[in-house]
């Protein structure tokens, strides 16, 4: 009943209103709405970036109400004065935090590189492995196809704590403990990529494949020449999402990597406390850079993908 009311509302009030606007006004409205949302979404990042340009003192003063466990707080009775007021523009722009992070503490850079060593092979590996598997699941017909795929999905849904101890045992047997491979291998063979690419490949009209087969191509050629290029948006999306997931991983390095020198940056950033906030903001800003770059790069491919999919075989 409510949907009826909503429907008629849309039909009789909103629709004419929007239809009444010129195309330009409509576009402007859209932009406005999107802009509003975008600001909301971006605000935490902006906050991180601006705070990273502040000196440590400024941050401590600014964030005093939400910092410090106990002592100074429990002494003065709470009046109504103390709430955090967000400061957007630093009183004094300073790069001291970045200086500290990059120059005085080179360990950050090592950890950054560790993150890279972990993430890049996983992305590359998973794309290759999953594309192959995805092709099999989407284009080929074989008896175990559906049940096998189903198993993939279900296992993928397991939270990592469940497979942690068995993974640990297996890694130990294979002699992989304390090596990056203990994390990279499971990363490469994750089900997510298979899942995603299989979905994308289902889109490819069978007509294309059929045509290629009639032309005498074998499966491998079909795979390489037709299916893969058509999957560009999917692969771009996969790369982006994998990067984000793996760049942020914390629990696995803690357990599988014994050495302190091998820990990635995500582990360090998983526990930030007071007194380190300025550094934390700066480190976070640096930490975000690769992901932002990755996003910009992949976005281009998404666009390319549109153009390609419009082209007829």
């Amino acid at each position, binding site marked *: 009943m409510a949907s009826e009311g909503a429907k008629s509302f849309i039909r009789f009030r909103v629709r004419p209103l929007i239809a009444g606007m010129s195309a330009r006004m409509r576009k402007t409205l859209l932009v406005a*709405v999107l802009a509003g949302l975008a600001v909301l979404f971006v605000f935490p990042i902006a906050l991180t970036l601006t705070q990273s340009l502040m000196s440590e003192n400024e941050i401590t003063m600014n964030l005093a109400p939400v910092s410090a466990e106990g002592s100074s707080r429990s002494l003065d009775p709470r009046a109504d004065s103390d709430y955090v007021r967000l400061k957007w523009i630093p009183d004094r722009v300073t790069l001291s935090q970045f200086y500290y992070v990059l120059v005085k503490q080179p360990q950050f850079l090592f950890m950054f590189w560790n993150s890279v060593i972990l993430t890049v092979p996983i992305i590359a590996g998973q794309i290759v492995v999953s594309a192959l598997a995805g092709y099999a699941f989407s284009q080929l017909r074989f008896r175990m196809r559906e049940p096998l795929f189903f198993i993939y999905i279900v296992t993928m849904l397991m939270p990592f704590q469940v497979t942690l101890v068995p993974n640990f045992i297996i890694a130990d047997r294979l002699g992989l403990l304390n090596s990056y491979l203990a994390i990279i291998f499971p990363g490469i063979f994750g089900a997510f990529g298979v899942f*995603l690419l299989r979905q994308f490949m289902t889109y490819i009209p069978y007509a294309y494949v059929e045509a290629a087969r009639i032309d005498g191509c074998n499966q491998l050629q079909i795979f390489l020449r037709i299916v893969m290029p058509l999957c560009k948006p999917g692969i771009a999306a996969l790369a982006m999402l994998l990067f984000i997931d793996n760049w942020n991983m914390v629990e696995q390095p803690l357990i599988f990597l014994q050495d302190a020198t091998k820990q990635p940056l995500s582990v360090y950033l998983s526990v930030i406390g007071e007194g380190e906030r300025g550094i934390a903001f700066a480190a976070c800003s640096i930490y975000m850079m690769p992901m932002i770059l990755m996003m910009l790069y992949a976005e281009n491919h998404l666009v390319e993908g549109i153009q390609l999919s419009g082209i007829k075989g």
Partner: protein
Amino acid sequence: MLKRRKFNEGITAGLFLAPSAVGFALFFFIPFLIGCYYSLMDSPVDGSFVGLRNYNDLLHNEVFRRAAWNTFRFTAISVPLNMLLSLGLAMMLNRSVYLRSLFRISFLFPLVIPVASVVLIWQIVFELNGSLNGLMQSWGMSPRDWMESHNSLAVVIIVYLWKNIGYNMVLFLAGLQNIPVDYYEAASIDGAGKFRQWRSITLVYLTPTTFFVFIISIINSFKVFRETYMIAGEYPHEDIYMMQHYMNNMFKSLDYQKLTSAAFLMALAITLLVFVLFLVERRITNSISG
């Protein structure tokens, strides 16, 4: 002719699948089974077989039931909400809008932020002395403790949506772009209106993507645990104490069999859900790629 093709495809399929299947079995499926085995024991080391006793205990455990209910409630609210909003956004951003790329990227930003930043900012905004309360006070409303009240669920949902709408949007966008433009052309030549086109072409051809996004959203709704854990610790307010908290605590206290049993019950529930969706999706997909 048909029979031979089926047989051949089996072998080819095997080759294509080999790398993934082997790795997957070794690093995921076998550990999964081992975990299953643990759930039937009473101790991870030198335990004795106790059959389904762990499951029975769990189902009677109040804390477990609460965690299960909270998880269900959270997922049931946030996942559909997420999908609706992200689909809407994807559709809006699919046409050529001024500054489109910029918008697309900005919605993706939340994904890029490391957990530490999210936590810091969450604290700044939502804590008892945070800026949200400050804002409320200046508007004349009384401040509340966001995380320690029945509002905590709302906060977690908001954070989940904020973080994951971009994720789903990317997927929906890619899916939308995969629908060949000629379908729309053909349809409008046939005289179908915009809404009709949307219903019969977009929604239908989006089905595999939708299925996918649904599953991924569920997985991501579990991931929100990490941020919640960092803010509210191992024992948050009872409204947001979820399965992941339960499992994490079981892991820390070495109650491995409770952990695996709980995980399996959860998997069972999800499996049923996925199974149903799977059947629906398969039917539609088969009608597409014929």
